[in-house]
């Protein structure tokens, strides 16, 4: 550790400069606009100070509360499925079998696909008219499937799409976590007569905890921000009007800048609090281990 902090700051300065100009200043601006009434189509031009009005409005805005509920539902179900599925896949990948790396490469592929292309892929699958999913569901199971008309189906489809897209990420982090677990405790537990479930619960899981938390942390951040793929899939139809999409609608087509800013800020606040708690959980644990 060097004490010459001037050079340290110098090395850090370009990064800080870019992040302040394009990350922090916009944040301050959003904070400021959130306390104002500002709509391009309003009778009065420009900003008009309105105190906490936007935030008051937000609590009673059904569209907003629904969008938060939908986002949380989406994030919870998607992340839960991804973690369970990802863990199972990682567990299977710890074994050696011929062709393993090929399967792993194919499994990793969705991770690198552009969200907008993921949306396009799934839209082509479920589109009424020529999409195979509605066609076969109707023919084999007599299920009417149309994401434009049934909000639950739209939500379910976006969850499945997210699972398709992001499970590989969980698999990879879990795989790394699993391979970093030392052998001795596992062997010891087996010698002591623990069955598979007990080994998993008392040995594997505590070792995996930091990795698991980090993975969930990254996934929460991204799931709450999801816009592109769901927009491409359903065009902001019912059942998929997540907070990110709702903000976009308020800011761009409606040009209700003040209100849009206050929603953004609350969303950001919720995400930061959620992640901060997770961060403390992770780093607290790490310090405990070092000392």
């Amino acid at each position: 550790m060097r004490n010459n902090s001037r050079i340290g700051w110098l090395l850090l300065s370009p990064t800080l400069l870019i992040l302040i100009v394009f990350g922090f200043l916009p944040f301050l601006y959003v904070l400021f606009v959130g306390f104002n009434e500002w709509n391009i189509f309003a009778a009065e031009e420009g900003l008009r100070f309105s105190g906490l009005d936007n935030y008051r409005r937000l609590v009673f805005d059904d569209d907003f509360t629904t969008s938060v509920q939908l986002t949380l539902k989406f994030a919870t179900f998607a992340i839960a499925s991804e973690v369970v599925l990802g863990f199972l896949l990682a567990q299977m990948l710890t074994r050696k079998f011929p062709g393993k790396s090929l399967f792993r490469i194919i499994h990793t592929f969705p991770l690198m696909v552009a969200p907008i292309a993921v949306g396009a892929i799934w839209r082509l699958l479920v589109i009424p008219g020529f999409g195979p999913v509605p066609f076969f569901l109707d023919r084999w199971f007599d299920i009417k499937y149309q994401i434009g008309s049934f909000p639950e189906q739209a939500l379910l489809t976006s969850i499945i799409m997210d699972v398709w897209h992001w499970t590989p990420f969980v698999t990879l982090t879990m795989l790394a976590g699993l391979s970093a677990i030392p052998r001795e405790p596992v062997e010891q537990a087996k010698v002591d007569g623990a069955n598979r479930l007990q080994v998993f619960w008392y040995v594997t899981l505590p070792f995996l905890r930091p990795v698991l938390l980090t993975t969930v942390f990254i996934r929460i951040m991204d799931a709450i921000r999801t816009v592109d793929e769901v927009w491409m899939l359903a065009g902001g139809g019912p059942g998929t009007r997540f907070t990110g999409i709702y903000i976009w609608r308020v800011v761009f087509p409606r040009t209700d800048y003040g209100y849009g800013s206050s929603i953004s800020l609350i969303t950001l606040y919720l995400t930061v609090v959620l992640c901060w708690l997770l961060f403390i959980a992770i780093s607290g644990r790490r310090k405990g281990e070092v000392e």
Partner: protein
Amino acid sequence: MRQRVWRFLLTYGFWVFMTALTLIPIWWMFVVSMRSRVELFSRPNLAISRFFVENYTNVLTDSTFQRYMTNSIVVSTCNAALVMALALLATYALSRYKLAGRDNIFFWLITNRMAPPAAFLLPLFIMFTRSFRIGDWTLFDTQLGLILLYCVFNLPFAIWLLKGVVDGIPIELDDAAMIDGAGLAGVLRHVVIPLAAPGLAVTGILSWVFAWNEYLFAANLTSVEARTITTGLAEFVTVTGTNWGELAAMSMITLIPSAIIVIVAQRYIVMGLTFGAVKE
């Protein structure tokens, strides 16, 4: 013996099933990209009977598409290079120097990735169109604007990845190089960069992919000159009717770099995605 056979069948059955789940959606898009409008609206059929490449030739010979493609390549490459350079310097500083509030800086860096992107569109739009103005030139609709903006998302992630790598390089090596008369630049060039090379490569690749894949900002902060390929994709979906065949063809083209990267650099991506997570 019998148990072994069962196990073998189960493992492969499972993996074939998972692979099918991964690939069928992409395969279907490929099928759509190989069909004309008329063929498309008949009964869904997962097999390809004839190759209808007009969708691809239409897209590839379109000058607008060529411009989008060039923009995407330039923006992604410059962004990846910039992110690698800046992240290395920043990580070195965070790792080696006593800086006031280091941990807070680190967390603040990460919060930049949490923001709902839609929230920042408005201030960025205003900054791009009005604040950064030199005569008639604005940051709006330029490649430079996107390159700088994507740093906001890539730098925190890159620093997070590299932190573990640089922390893992013993400071004694730096000291040894300095005793041999190397300055800061020398230490970076001869000690840190060679040892952190795999991590740096991963950072570059992942930043490149992020920039290539980004849609929301590219769509709202560019209009004609600097549009990227993802925005081009979304432009196909119009109220008056979408040309699904060409949309699929263009999506397939968008997938190509991702496919190449996954196949060539799989091992490094796995390393990179897990550095932050498993540096214990």
